[in-house]
C-alpha cells in the first residue's frame, strides 16, 4: 500500500533531540547575533499541490476501478473506502506541511514537527554525513526536492526524522551547502560554483567520455583540497547498458506492475482467468506438454525480466555522474524521472564494496557501493544512496571504487583462501539441507501421496547445490592491506568488501558448534558504516586472531596467549 515516496503519516515526531518544543511556531528561543540562521524555515508551500496529486496517483487502481471500469457493487464500495482513505491521507499531508519547520544554527540542525505532540529533533552539525536530494516527477515539475540528511547515528528513528519533504530546489541546494560545505572555519565557499549537482535540470545523456575505464588512480586521486576544482570520477557510459538486463531489477518492476494490474482488475471486479487472451495462453500451455511449456514460460519471463531490467536501469541511472567536489565531498547524480543527488562527506567513507550477482558476474559485470557512516546499507529510502557505480563492467566498477579510495589494490589484490576445512563446511552446509529435502519429499511421496514432481524438484536442487557450494568455497577469501581489511564471500550475490582499518570499531568472533569441530570461526568486523558488520566467513581460528590483532594492533594484546613461536603459520591457502 505505502509507496516508496512517503514515510507515511508521522505526526509523532521522534523526540531524540533536546528541547520539548513548547515554544510558539515562529519564535526563535535563543537570541544570537546572526539573525538569519536562527529563523525557523518552512517547507515549500508548493508541496500543498504535490501531496494530493501523489496520493491520488497512489490510489489510482481504486479510482480507475470506480470511475472507468467498475460498476460492480461490491468493488465500488471498496473503492469508496479507498477514496475516503485518500482524503484522510491528503489531510494529514497538509497538516504535516503546516507543522513542520526546520533551521540550521551554527552548531545544530533542528527539525520541529507535530501538531498535538510537538517535538524538536536536534542533530549536531558535525554529525551530518550525507545529504540526499530526491525529486520525483511532480517535485521536478514544480522545482522541488526532498532532502534527507544522514547522520552517523545507527538509531533508526533519528534517521527518519531528518527528512524534509520538500524544499524548493534552490533552498535544498543551499541547505546542502550549509550542512556539508560551509562548516569548519577554513572552507569558505561562498556560492560554490564547483558543485556539480543540479538535480532539477534536464538530465544530460550520459555520454561524457571524461573518463576511460581502467586508468590508474593517480592523478585524479587528490581532487580534494583544491577548494574549487570538482573532478568527475565517473559518468554513465553507453557500453554499461549491456549489463542492464542482467541487473535483475526488472523482477521488482514486474512484481509491481503485476500487483498494480491485479488491483485494478480486482477493484473493477474483473476476473483475469475468464478473459480471452489469458485463457488462450493457458490452453496452449496445457496442450504443449511439460518441457515445451516450461521452456516457453522461462523464455517469456527471461525476456520480460531483461526488458524491464533495462528500463529500470535507465530510469535509475540515466545521467549518472560521480564527482569529487573541492570541498571534500562526493556527489552522485542520477535518475531519469526521479532524480537523485547524494552528497557524501568523504571523510566519513570507511570503505568500498564491489558486488555482483551470479548473472552479472557471468557477463563480467559488477557494481560498486560506498561503505560510509550515515548511510546504512539496505534500509528503505537509504537503499541505493551509497551507490558509487551502477552495474558496469568489472574493470569500470573497480576503477570507480579505486578512485574513491585513492588506492586500487583492495579491489584487485589476490585474496587468501580459507582452506580445506572451510571448503568442506561450504559443501556440508549446502548439501546437507538439499539432501534432507530429498529424503523428506521422498518419504512424503511414498507415505503421504505427495506428487512425484516434488521429489524431482528436490533432486534438481541437490544437483545444483554442488556447483553452488564449489563457487561459494572458491569465493571465500580475505586480505589485510596497510590501509584496509578486504573480505569476499557469497555466490548468488558475491561481495568483496574493503573496509578501512580505521573503520573497524570492534570484533565479534563467532564459533558455532560445528565450526568449533572444524576449527573455524567467523570473524566479524563491526563498523558504524554501511552494513554495520563485515564478516570473514569460516576462517581458521588462529588466522582470525592474527587478522584481528594485525588490523588493530594492541587492542587484543592483553587477551592473547601462546605468541612464543614466531615461525610462519602454515597458511592454509589452497
Amino acid at each position, binding site marked *: 500500500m505505502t509507496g516508496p515516496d512517503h514515510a507515511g503519516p508521522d505526526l509523532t515526531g521522534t523526540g531524540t533531540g533536546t528541547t520539548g518544543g513548547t515554544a510558539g511556531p515562529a519564535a526563535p528561543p535563543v537570541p544570537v547575533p546572526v539573525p538569519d540562521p536562527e529563523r525557523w524555515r518552512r517547507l515549500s508551500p508548493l508541496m500543498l499541490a504535490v501531496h494530493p496529486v501523489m496520493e491520488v496517483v497512489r490510489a489510482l487502481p481504486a479510482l480507475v476501478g470506480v470511475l472507468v471500469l467498475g460498476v460492480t457493487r461490491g468493488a465500488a464500495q471498496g473503492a469508496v473506502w479507498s477514496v475516503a482513505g485518500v482524503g484522510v491521507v491528503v489531510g494529514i499531508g497538509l497538516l504535516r506541511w503546516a507543522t513542520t519547520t526546520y533551521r540550521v544554527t551554527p552548531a545544530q540542525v533542528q527539525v520541529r514537527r507535530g501538531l498535538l505532540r510537538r517535538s524538536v529533533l536536534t542533530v549536531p552539525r558535525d554529525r551530518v554525513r550525507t545529504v540526499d536530494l530526491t525529486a520525483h516527477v511532480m517535485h521536478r515539475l514544480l522545482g522541488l526536492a526532498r532532502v534527507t540528511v544522514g547522520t552517523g547515528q545507527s538509531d533508526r528513528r533519528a534517521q527518519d526524522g531528518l527528512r524534509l519533504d520538500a524544499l524548493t530546489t534552490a533552498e535544498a541546494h543551499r541547505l546542502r551547502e550549509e550542512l556539508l560545505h560551509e562548516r569548519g572555519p577554513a572552507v569558505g565557499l561562498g556560492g560554490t560554483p564547483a558543485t556539480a549537482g543540479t538535480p532539477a535540470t534536464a538530465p544530460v545523456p550520459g555520454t561524457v567520455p571524461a573518463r576511460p575505464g581502467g586508468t590508474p588512480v593517480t592523478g585524479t586521486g587528490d581532487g580534494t583540497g583544491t577548494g574549487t576544482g570538482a573532478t568527475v570520477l565517473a559518468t554513465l557510459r553507453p557500453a554499461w547498458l549491456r549489463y542492464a538486463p542482467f541487473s535483475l531489477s526488472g523482477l521488482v518492476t514486474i512484481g509491481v506492475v503485476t500487483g498494480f494490474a491485479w488491483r485494478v482488475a480486482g477493484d473493477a471486479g474483473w476476473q483475469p482467468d475468464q478473459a480471452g487472451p489469458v485463457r488462450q495462453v493457458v490452453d496452449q500451455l496445457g496442450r504443449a506438454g511439460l518441457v515445451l511449456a516450461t521452456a516457453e514460460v522461462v523464455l517469456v519471463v527471461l525476456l520480460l525480466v531483461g526488458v524491464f531490467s533495462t528500463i529500470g536501469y535507465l530510469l535509475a541511472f540515466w545521467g549518472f555522474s560521480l564527482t569529487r567536489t573541492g570541498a571534500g565531498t562526493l556527489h552522485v547524480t542520477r535518475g531519469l524521472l526521479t532524480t537523485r543527488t547524494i552528497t557524501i562527506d568523504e571523510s566519513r567513507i570507511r570503505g568500498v564494496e564491489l558486488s555482483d550477482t551470479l548473472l552479472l558476474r557471468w557477463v563480467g559485470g559488477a557494481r560498486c557501493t560506498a561503505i560510509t557512516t550515515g548511510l546504512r546499507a539496505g534500509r528503505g529510502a537509504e537503499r541505493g544512496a551509497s551507490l558509487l557505480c551502477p552495474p558496469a563492467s568489472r574493470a569500470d566498477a573497480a576503477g570507480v571504487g579505486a578512485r574513491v579510495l585513492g588506492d586500487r589494490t583492495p579491489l584487485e589484490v589476490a585474496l587468501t583462501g580459507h582452506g580445506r576445512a572451510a571448503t568442506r563446511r561450504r559443501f556440508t552446509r549446502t548439501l546437507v539441507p538439499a539432501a534432507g529435502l530429498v529424503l523428506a519429499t521422498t518419504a512424503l511421496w511414498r507415505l503421504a501421496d505427495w506428487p512425484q514432481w516434488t521429489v524431482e524438484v528436490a533432486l534438481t536442487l541437490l544437483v545444483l547445490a554442488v556447483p553452488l557450494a564449489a563457487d561459494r568455497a572458491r569465493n571465500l577469501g580475505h586480505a589485510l592491506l596497510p590501509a584496509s581489511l578486504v573480505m569476499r564471500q557469497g555466490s548468488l550475490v558475491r561481495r568483496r568488501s574493503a573496509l578501512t582499518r580505521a573503520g573497524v570499531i570492534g570484533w565479534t568472533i563467532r564459533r558455532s558448534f560445528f565450526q*568449533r569441530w572444524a576449527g573455524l570461526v567467523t570473524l566479524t568486523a563491526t563498523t558504524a558504516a554501511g*552494513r554495520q558488520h563485515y564478516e570473514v566467513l569460516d576462517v581458521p581460528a588462529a588466522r582470525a586472531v592474527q587478522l584481528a590483532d594485525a588490523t588493530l594492533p594492541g587492542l587484543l594484546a592483553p587477551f592473547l596467549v601462546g605468541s612464543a613461536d614466531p615461525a610462519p*603459520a602454515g597458511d592454509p591457502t589452497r
Partner: protein
Amino acid sequence: MTDSTLPTLALRPPAHRVSGRAVVYWTARAALGWVGLVAAQAIWLAVSPAERAAHVAVFAVTLVLAVLHLAVMPQWRFRVHRWEYSQDAVYTQAGWFNQERRIAPVSRIQTVDSHRGPFERMFGLANVTVTTASAAGPLTIEGLDQPVADRLVDDLTRQTQVAGGDAT
C-alpha cells in the same frame, strides 16, 4: 600473504565468570518454558484419548529433552559466559552451543548501561550492555551480581569519558 609470517596466536577466554546464581536463573528460565510445553501436552493427553500411544511417546521425548536441556545448558553456559575489560578494551564471551566472543575498544564505546528484568531481580542479577556506533556490535554481559554490574558500569563510564571523540 605477507602477514602469514605473524606468530601464531590464540585468544584466551576472558578472565571473570558471571555470578554463580546465574546458573539457577538460567535453569529457572528454561524450566518455565518447558513447564508450559509439558503442561500443554499433559492436558492434551487427558482430554483426547485417541492415539494414546503416540501421545505418550511424544510426551516422553519432550520430558527427556527437557531434563537433558535443564541439566546441560545452564552448566555449559556458565562455563562459557565470561567477561573482562582492560584499559583499552572490553571483552566478552557468551553462548553455549554456539559461542561468541566480542571485543570493543573503550575509545569506541558510546553507551554503557545496566538493566535487570523482574525475574532477574528475584535472583539479584543484572545485565550490562555496552554499545558502540555500530548497530551490530553491542556487548551484553548477562547474569552479573548487582554490585559487580554497578562497579563495571561506573568504571567503563569513567574510562569512556577519558577517551573522547565521536566514536565512529
